[in-house]
C-alpha cells in the first residue's frame, strides 16, 4: 500500500493546484451567480418577447421556408420548459418535444420514451441509436489517423459533402429536403469485422473515462464527431439560412428495430427556425 501511496503522492505533487486558489474560487462563485442572473433575465425576456410576438405577429410565428423546399413540420408549442431545452447536462428525457440551439438556429424535434440527451449535441438510446446536430468546420483526411491532416470543407454544403466523400466508408450523396430545407444526404460506415480491434491502429484520445482508438469524421470547434467499429451513420447536410447544419443519425448492428424506427420518427419531426 505504501508503494501505491508513494506513487500517487509523487505524481500528484508534480501538478500543484492552480493559484491563487481562493481568488479563483471567488471568481467561480461570482460567475455562477452572474450566470444565474443572466439565465433568469433571458428566460423572462424570452417569455415576454414570445408572448408579444404571438399577439402582434401570430400568423408569422413558426418555421421559415426557403424557395424550392417542402413545408417543414410544424414547430411545437413555444416556449419550452427548462426540461425541454437541451443544455450541457446529460439526462433522461421526458417523451415529447425538445429544443436545442446551434448557432442562430432553433431546432425542435419529438423524443420518444427512453431517450437521453448527450449535452446539447445529440439524443441517444442505450442500445446505440443516436441523432445529433453539428456544424462541421474541419474534416480529417484520414478518419483513422485523424490527428495528422485535415481538409478544409469551406462553408458550402457541396464543400463538406466533397470533403467527407473523400474519406473511406462513405456513399455517394443525393439531393434531399429535410425539415423544409434543401441539402445532401449520404451514408457513412465505420470499419467493422469480427474482432473488436479493427480500429487498433487508429489515433487515440480520451473518450469519457478511458483512452480509446477512434475514427473521427469531422470537428466542430474543439469537439469532434467520431465513430466506433461497425457504426452506421446517415447524414443530412443542410443549408439553413446560410448556416451549414449536419444532422446525423447513427446506429449499430445490435441496435433494436424499435430504436431504429424511433430514429426515423425523430428525424421526421425536426423543425428548424
Amino acid at each position, binding site marked *: *500500500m*505504501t*508503494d*501505491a*501511496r508513494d*506513487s*500517487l*503522492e*509523487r*505524481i*500528484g*505533487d*508534480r*501538478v*500543484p*493546484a*492552480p493559484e491563487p*486558489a*481562493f481568488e*479563483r*474560487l471567488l471568481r*467561480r*462563485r461570482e460567475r*455562477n451567480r452572474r450566470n444565474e442572473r443572466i439565465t433568469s433575465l433571458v428566460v423572462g425576456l424570452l417569455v415576454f418577447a414570445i408572448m408579444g410576438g404571438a399577439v402582434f405577429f401570430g400568423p408569422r410565428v413558426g418555421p421559415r421556408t426557403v424557395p424550392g423546399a417542402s413545408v417543414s413540420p410544424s414547430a411545437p408549442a413555444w416556449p419550452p420548459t427548462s426540461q425541454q431545452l437541451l443544455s450541457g447536462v*446529460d439526462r433522461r428525457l421526458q417523451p415529447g418535444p425538445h429544443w436545442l440551439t446551434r448557432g442562430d438556429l432553433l431546432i425542435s424535434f419529438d423524443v420518444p420514451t427512453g431517450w*437521453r440527451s*448527450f*449535452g446539447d*449535441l*445529440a439524443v*441517444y*438510446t*442505450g*442500445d*446505440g*441509436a*443516436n441523432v*445529433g446536430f453539428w456544424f462541421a468546420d474541419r474534416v480529417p483526411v484520414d478518419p483513422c489517423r485523424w*490527428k495528422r491532416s485535415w481538409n478544409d470543407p469551406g462553408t458550402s454544403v457541396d464543400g463538406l459533402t466533397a470533403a467527407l466523400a473523400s474519406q473511406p466508408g462513405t456513399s455517394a450523396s443525393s439531393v434531399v429536403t429535410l425539415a423544409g430545407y434543401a441539402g445532401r444526404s449520404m451514408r457513412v460506415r465505420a470499419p467493422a469485422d469480427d474482432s473488436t480491434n479493427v480500429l487498433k491502429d487508429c489515433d*487515440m*484520445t*480520451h*473518450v*469519457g*473515462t*478511458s*483512452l*480509446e482508438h*477512434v*475514427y473521427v469524421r469531422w470537428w466542430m470547434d*474543439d*469537439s*469532434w*464527431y*467520431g*465513430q*466506433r467499429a461497425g457504426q452506421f451513420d446517415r447524414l443530412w447536410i443542410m443549408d439553413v439560412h446560410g448556416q451549414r447544419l449536419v444532422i446525423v443519425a447513427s446506429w*449499430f448492428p445490435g441496435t433494436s428495430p424499435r430504436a431504429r424506427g424511433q430514429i426515423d420518427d425523430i428525424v421526421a419531426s425536426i423543425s428548424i427556425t
Partner: protein
Amino acid sequence: MESRGGDAPIGNAMEVSVSDLSFDELFANEYRALFRSLFLITGNTQDAEELMQDAFLKVWERWDRVSRMENPNGYLFRVAMNAARSRVRRLRLAAKHVVVTGSVEDPFAAADLRDELVRALARLSERQRMALVLTDLLDLPADQAADLLRVRTPTIRSLASQARAALRVTMGADDD
C-alpha cells in the same frame, strides 16, 4: 491517518478543531489535498479544479450547517467524491455509444506522460484510480470507500488491488 465511525474524516485537516474552523481555514487546509486527489482520479487539471471548486462552493452555501458537523473536511471530501463518481458514471454512459469530446488532451498530460508511472496510472480505469485514491492516499477503510462509490466492499478491494498491482508491475517493486 485513522478514521472513525461512519462519517470518517478524509483529508489533511483531521486534527483541526471543528468549533474553531472558518470556511477560509477549511479551504486553506484542504484545497491542495483535494485538488491532488481529484487530479489523480480525473487525470485532468481542469476537471479537478472544477470538481474541487464545486465541492467547496456547496460546502460554503451550507456552511451554517456544515460548520457544526464533527468533520467538515470529511463532508467536503464526500461531496467532492460523490461529484467525481457522478462524473465517471455520466461520462461512461455518454461515451457508451456516442463518441464525442471537448478536448483531445490526454489524461495526466500535465504530469508528464513520458513517465512510466504516470502512463501506468493513465491506463487504469477511473474507478480503479478512485478506489486507489480513497483507500491508499486518503486511508479510507474499504467499507467507507465502497459506500462512497456505491459498490460492495469486495469490489472496492478488488479495484484497489488491481490498481496497486498495475502500478507495482510498472515500478518493478516487490509486493509488500
